[in-house]
């Protein structure tokens, strides 16, 4: 752990044998150790799959793409040092990642300084272009604000929740979601009857749930991380409180349902990606991913980085390797269709707003609605 912070080990992946033509270097910064390590593999596999497909199809006008993978250990300071190295020593033309919002907020000025585009899958609304106007920073999946807006809309319009009770965690991810929920519900003339905090690491939500119950809530809005989601639904079932449950993106992943397989049945969640999505583009991606990675199934955010690599390839073909031109092209002209549907940079510098409302059936997440 400590060593990796000092001696960052870079794994250089030489992909494809380029008999002629130069190589174009891109960096990928993701967590392979530390607390977010599960995501690192998805990110790398998604990006590498796209890169291999692009190279196999002739690369960028004959030049091959090469990806240098760095581990940021899910730590903003480590992310900063590896990104410096990628930008100022490896001289990459673009950086994918980091995938942690706090790391992005810490390192995005480096991309501006080096004039190199940074494409991230981190989802916090706190670095939207309207908040942090960095011309070199782009987002590859729907951000959390979009997701919570859709969650509230579904909770009110379809589930008919009139007295929402919220449980929320204490990280930026949860609090940003809470702010959006507080803004959105009143738009439907609905008052949130209770908001209770379940801190990361808490294992008893009895008190919080009883308070929600006493406030007369008729629907639970979950804005916590995976473990706390499991604690909440388990205890809600134990207390036999029967209300619809709809949760944030952390409530729509195996890390939650594995911990509460029975209790999670019937829970709704807003997701960014779902491998059982019947959309042909998604199915083609899932098939290719499984074929390349020994049958492993992709999970969010693999698709975001896969799409990101294609976006970059499109930009490179059109304007070459100059960072400023690349950023301008990505912001104003790039428009391709990827796994997540049409990818086009909006005023927030987000390429997509796609999200899914799904319900857990004990095994898979059944898609109910897909919103662009």
């Amino acid at each position, binding site marked *: *752990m400590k060593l990796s912070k000092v001696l960052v080990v870079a794994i250089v992946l030489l992909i494809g044998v380029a008999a002629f033509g130069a190589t174009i270097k891109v960096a990928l910064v993701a967590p392979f150790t530390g607390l977010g390590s599960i995501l690192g593999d998805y990110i790398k596999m998604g990006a590498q799959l796209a890169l291999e497909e692009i190279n196999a199809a002739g690369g960028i006008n004959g030049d091959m793409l090469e990806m240098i993978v760095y581990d940021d250990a899910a730590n903003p300071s480590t992310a900063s040092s590896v990104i410096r190295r990628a930008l100022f020593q490896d001289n990459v033309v673009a950086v994918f990642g980091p995938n942690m919002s706090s790391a992005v907020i810490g390192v995005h000025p480096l991309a501006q300084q080096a004039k190199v585009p940074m494409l991230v899958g981190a989802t916090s609304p706190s670095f939207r272009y309207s908040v942090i106007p960095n011309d070199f920073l782009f987002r590859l999946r729907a951000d959390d604000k979009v997701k919570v807006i859709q969650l509230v809309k579904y909770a009110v319009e379809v589930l008919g929740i009139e007295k929402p009770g919220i449980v929320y965690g204490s990280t930026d991810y949860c609090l940003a979601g809470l702010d959006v929920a507080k803004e959105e519900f009143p738009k439907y003339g609905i008052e949130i009857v209770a908001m209770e905090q379940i801190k990361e690491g808490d294992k008893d939500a009895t008190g919080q749930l009883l308070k929600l119950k006493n406030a007369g809530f008729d629907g639970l809005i979950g804005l916590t991380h995976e473990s706390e989601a499991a604690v909440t639904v388990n205890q809600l079932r*134990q207390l036999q409180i029967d209300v619809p449950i709809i949760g944030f993106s952390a409530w729509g992943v195996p890390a939650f349902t594995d911990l509460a397989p029975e209790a999670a049945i019937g829970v709704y969640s807003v997701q960014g990606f779902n491998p059982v999505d019947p959309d042909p583009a998604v199915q083609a991606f899932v098939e290719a991913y499984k074929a390349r990675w020994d049958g492993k199934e992709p999970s969010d955010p693999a698709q975001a980085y896969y799409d990101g690599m294609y976006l970059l390839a499109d930009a490179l073909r059109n304007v070459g390797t100059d960072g400023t031109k690349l950023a301008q092209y990505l912001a104003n002209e790039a428009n391709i269709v990827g796994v997540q549907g049409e990818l086009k940079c909006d005023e927030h510098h987000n390429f997509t707003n796609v999200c899914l409302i799904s319900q857990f059936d004990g095994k898979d997440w059944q898609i109910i609605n897909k919103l662009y």
Partner: protein
Amino acid sequence: MLQDILQIIVSGASIGATYGLVGLGVVFLWLTISRINFANISSAMLGAYLFYSFYTQLNLGFFISFVLSIAVIALYGLGLRAFIYEPIRKRGGGRLEFVVATLMLCTFWLNLIIVTYGALPKPFPPVFGGSQDFISLGGIRIPTLYLNIYLVIGILMVFIYFLLNKTLIGKSFRAAAQNREAAALMGIDVKVTTSLSFILATCVVGIAGILLAPIYFVSLELGGGSIGVKGFASAVLGGLTNPYGTILGGISLGLLENFSTLYISSTYRDIISFSVLVAVLILKPSGIFNWKSKKI
């Protein structure tokens, strides 16, 4: 309203009792060698992960997995003595050196677990009852899980009582705890009692880890963070010298937490409970139950 209060008492007391169990590990070492082991909580994490490996990955069945896990933890306790405590003592290191060494050990175990098992929490097999099984008692619902926690802690406390009061080694242990030098002069083998205290200290926390795993999942949270601190707090509430007081201290802390959530605010819960703990420490350093002497 009364139902809510009873419900809160049931869940608060059972989580609290496990805090108390973690606190026991602190107390046993403090009694015998006057050291605070900051890697105390690591035993809980190791216990849970070992049980998970034996039970889920190797399918050894509940009983064998449980016994094996505790046996490994007991060996770990002896190792702690042989490789950490004794070398420091022999080279003239004191309490502070032991504290720093065990603090580092705690981080070492956390990172070893991250490397070997990954950082994602794993579901714990429902050996103490499923997540949704409960017994209804006049409108309050007691999860089977909590009943089993009470049961195991009850058995464990009876076992510890008999061990300390009815067996020769237990009596030696208590004698050495009250006055090490005098006990040694009376022919009690202090080495044996010291080893026993290391084994007890790691094993009770290991058992606590296995009991807590269904609630905490098999996760890194068992090996660091708030639960270790709450174990220390329980030990302090019990005055650091009394095993039974420690369990009661833990239960008090669990109840305090839950009542602050229900009647004050979930956001301020930890602020409230830890303010109370600091106040207790300042006002009543001998613990809330007033056991002053080292009588165990």
